[in-house]
């Protein structure tokens, strides 16, 4: 395949950082809760990519197993979060996080 001067490792690290950054940015700035959750998934993916890159770099299965753990946890978390959002949106009529201020208690 045609290869570019940039080392594979640096590129992948860059991609994962960018992914994470975009996720974080979205999570921090997006008003809608669902989008925030999606950005959360993005952040997790960034981390996964990061892990896989170094797992390959150090060729040790740890990175990959961690990757798997993250995926599992992300799945569980997404399920719960989304059902919560369903209830919240039913209760507050909207998915915008700011409307949930009254949950402050």
């Amino acid at each position, binding site marked *: 395949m045609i290869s570019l001067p940039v080392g594979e490792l640096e590129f992948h690290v860059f991609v994962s950082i960018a992914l994470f950054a975009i996720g974080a940015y979205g*999570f*921090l*700035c997006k008003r809608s809760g669902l989008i925030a959750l999606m950005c959360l998934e993005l952040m997790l993916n960034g981390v996964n990519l990061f892990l896989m890159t170094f797992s390959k770099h150090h060729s040790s299965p740890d990175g990959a197993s961690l990757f798997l753990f993250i995926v599992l946890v992300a799945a569980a978390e997404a399920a719960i979060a989304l059902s919560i959002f369903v209830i919240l949106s039913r209760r507050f009529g909207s998915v915008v*996080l*700011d409307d*949930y*201020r*009254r*949950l*402050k208690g």
Partner: protein
Amino acid sequence: MIFEGLRWILLAPLLGAVLNGVILQNKSAKISGLVATLASLVAFGFSVVACSQLSGLNSAPEQNFLIDPLFTWMSSGHVYVPFNLELTSITSVMLLVITGIGSLIHIYSISYLSEEESPWRFFSYLNLFLAAMLVLVLASNLAVVFLGWEGVGLCSYLLIGYWYKKPENTAAGMKAFITNRVGDIGFLIALFVAFSFFQTGDISRLAERVNDYAFLSSGVPTWAWYTFAGSLLWAATAKSAQIPLYIWLPDAMAGPTPVSALIHAATMVTSGIFLICRVWPLFAMSPVIVDAAFWIGMSTAWLAALIAVSQTDVKKVLAYSTVSQLGFMFVALGAGSPAAAFFHVITHACFKALLFLAAGSVIHGMHHKQEMSLMGGLKDKMKITHVCFLIGTLAIIGFPLTAGFFSKDMILAKVFAAQGVFGYILLLGAALLTAAYMFRAYTLCFWGGARSEYAQKAHESDPLMYMPLVVLAFLSLFIGWLELPEVFGHFTKITDWVHSSWYGVGVGEQAHLSHLAEWLLMLITSVLSLTVAYYSFKIYQRNPEFKILPEPLHKWSTNKFYVDEAFELLLIKPSMKAGRFINRISDETTFNGLANGSFRFTRLSGRLLALFHTGSVQTYAWHFVFWSSLIVGAIFLWTL
């Protein structure tokens, strides 16, 4: 020599006080008065027995006193205070005076208080006072003396404030108690010095300290001696109403007259001087303090005399005359002769009690009116009181051969011997002033026309009141014979008694005067005082409002030289205000504020922190990211 009888002298009045105060409490003056008088008579009986026992005992000087050990009051570390009673020659005389005059006054007050609604209270306090005075006199340890000392203060407080319905009586009582307390601080300091430096509170052992050279050279700091003597003098000035702390005595007249007679003339006020006489060997160790006593005495005598001259209330006049006479006694002490002072104590007790009781019966007759301006022309309505009052006045101004003459001349002689002519002239002036105001009071009361309807309706008091007057009149005439000056032959009972009570610790007396000097002194004093007396008698018969003192002095003296107001202004008000201010600052604002402040602060900080909980998830996330990156950055920079 052990003698068990002493304790009964003390227990009798105590029992009387308890009987009257707690158990009987019945309303009639007769019964409670009887119980009280009985108690004081029993005490008098026992003291006579004790004195005879003592005089019979003529062993070596160190042993010639009776001891009655009761129990150890407290003993811890260097403080050992056995509560035992002791009778030396000086105390025996004092004992007789107290119990004797005390019983007379009890009899007198039975009738004086006949129409009171709770006489039992008065009689129980009177008995309590007697007991306290006896403790003061009979105690062998200075701490026990202090017990009597404060006890007497308490009783005077209770008795002055007897008619507690009127607020000024209780105020006077409080004033008396507090001024006494100021003096007590001095006494306490003396006690501490005694216990920590002289290792004992026992008067006899203290006296021995003076001449056991081992102790003297063992490095007791000189300031110890001075503080001991100084604080004792301070205590005496408070109790015997000398210059700085005499203000309570005139106000003490708010109490019933028998009280003034017993306490503020005969017994309590003289206890200061009595105490100094008992510890004279130690006192004499610091000559500066002796001189101080002299000058305090002199200035008090003059000041009191000046005020007495312009007083209109008969009891106030007598009160100031007491202060002035006490000044005389201090002068005698200052001149270095406790014997003279003690002799004047004895004689003064008699004629001042007589004068007070006479004034009391006058007031009783005049339905409790004390203003001399209302009196006048009582000599034919109250014959016996008039005669007794006259004898008292003669005695106090030193009419030849009366008790006052002998004691006052002895003092004048001692002063002349010690301080020379200048001191003698000063004292003579005070004596003349005494003569002036006494005769002024006498003539205003008994001579001239009756100036008010009370004076017209005045009647002689019943026998129970004038009988003690007669006895006292007799005493004030002949008590003087106890101590004759050299000139009339060698009959010096008082000086022997005083010296022998120092457990054999002899202290040199002043040089003796030649016969001629003594005659001269006697002549001058009696002639001058008689002329002054005659002139004032004449003037006041014609013109009751005559002012002896020139105008500015007169106004000052009627207002008692504004001493009370000065005290109030300079001492009491600022210290109270400063105290309240300090307390408000230190307690309310700082510490209380601090405590409450800390409570409020926690609530405030709680509310402040709550602001961070905006409830928006994203702000939390944002904070999380920001701070964690900051920290990680910091760590990173740190590890570089």
